[in-house]
């Protein structure tokens, strides 16, 4: 799985979390607060209005996760339609979470504070 997340703003550091569940795929997710997203040919673009940060989501899968993005289904439910392995979707979710685009509905993770990861 080589999905990637890129940003057009500087100083964007990856968030680190200590996850206390076996697989992110089991969780229900939603867009993080202040984040909007729209589809593009290559996947999607997300914008965090609070951090004023654009993120390119270069993944054909991302556009096919509407139920997941609305928090109405667990990622596992979306798996069959995507043709992804569980590990691939797990990896994608981790990247989106790290980038502050998605967040789980359930309290399963504690952020680990990291110096120097504030964005503009």
């Amino acid at each position, binding site marked *: *799985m*080589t*999905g*990637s*997340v*890129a*940003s*057009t*703003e*500087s*100083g*964007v550091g990856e968030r680190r979390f200590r996850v206390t569940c076996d697989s992110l795929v089991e969780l229900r997710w939603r867009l993080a607060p202040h984040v*909007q997203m*729209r*589809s*593009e*040919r*290559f*996947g999607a*673009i997300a*914008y965090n*209005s609070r951090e*004023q940060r*654009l993120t*390119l989501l*270069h*993944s*054909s*899968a991302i556009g096919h996760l509407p139920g997941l993005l609305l928090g109405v289904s667990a990622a596992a439910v979306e798996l069959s339609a995507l043709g*992804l392995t569980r590990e*691939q979707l797990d990896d*994608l979710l981790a990247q989106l979470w790290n980038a502050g685009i998605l967040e789980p509905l359930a309290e399963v993770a504690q952020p680990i504070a990291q110096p120097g990861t504030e964005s*503009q």
Partner: protein
Amino acid sequence: MTIVRDALMEGLSSPLCLTWELTWACNLSCRHCLSSSGKPDPLELDLQACRRLLDDFRDMGIFYLNIGGGEPMMHPSFFGIIEYADALGIGVKFSTNGTRLNREAAQRIASLHYCDVQVSLDGATAAVNDAIRGAGSYERALWALQNLADAGVQGSKISVVVTKGSIGQLDELRTLASRFGAQLRLTRLRPSGRAQDCYEELALDDAQQRYLYEYLLRYPEIQTADSFFHLNALGASLPGLNFCGAGRVVCLIDPVGDVYACPFTIHPDFRAGSVRTDRFATIWRSAELFRDLRAQTPAAGCQRCDAYSRCHGGCLATKFFTGRSLFGADPSCVRAVGNPVSVPVPRRLSDHTRLVRRGSAGSSAAVGQSSLSSRRFRGVDGSSWGDIVGDV
């Protein structure tokens, strides 16, 4: 993280950086005004037309607008427009000279969900600023910044066009910004609008460009609107886009609804259509000019430069208005300073400082027509990029 360059080069379903100039009216007469503003045009879009346009922006998934002018607060429906945008969930960033930003206006701005105010200031002292923006403009800008701070508006910016006059004041400008809880934003002087008349006098020289580059590396919290990517040729890349986004991710709608590739390319060669005759989405997605720009390899003549992947030949507008070939290097190229002028320097066609009255909207060209000179783009091939990003 790297920018997914190819995806942006080919254009997006909607612009990322949409500048919307609401009016040409302005109560200042800055020497470097990119839109030669002064007097309003009788055909400027009214509130009803602006609301229709905002509905289109929402349907296109546009995240935010860069609102400018002229002085946008002089549009008779300024608050009606930005409050409607806010209600639609479209963020507003607007540039102002601050002269109308009183306490009441600041409080109204503070009540919006997302409104980012950029107060223009072109020097850390009245002497430097007022020489460009006019007598009294320095004090008025500081008054506006104080009103914003008092109203609790977060994240205001002091927006500076860096010139020979202000390059030595960067430390003072950072101090000034922090005094108001604001961020410093530095942008590049381009020879557009009235700046055509003072570009040579005000633009940074080679040593000053190097100083600025080092300064931006030292203080990455300074915002730049991706203005200075041509300086990447000096070494490590500055954050942000590293190629010209005109027509790819950048676009301008002017006060009468004409659509251009970039706020700094207000010229018939870069006019893509008019929202008076076509939907903005149609212009953005189908105009021949935009399709041409997205298909071009930027500054193909620079491709053999070893800094090309970081600079891509610099700013289209700066080349155009200094008479350089659009295939070649930026006139402020740090590797090839002194490129010969290759084509006649185009002049701006409008000066709203002295505007009397337009006879028509001047918006008759249909979408799909491009007045971009084929001479400028002929022979450019679409080469591929090296950093292919994988897919899942």
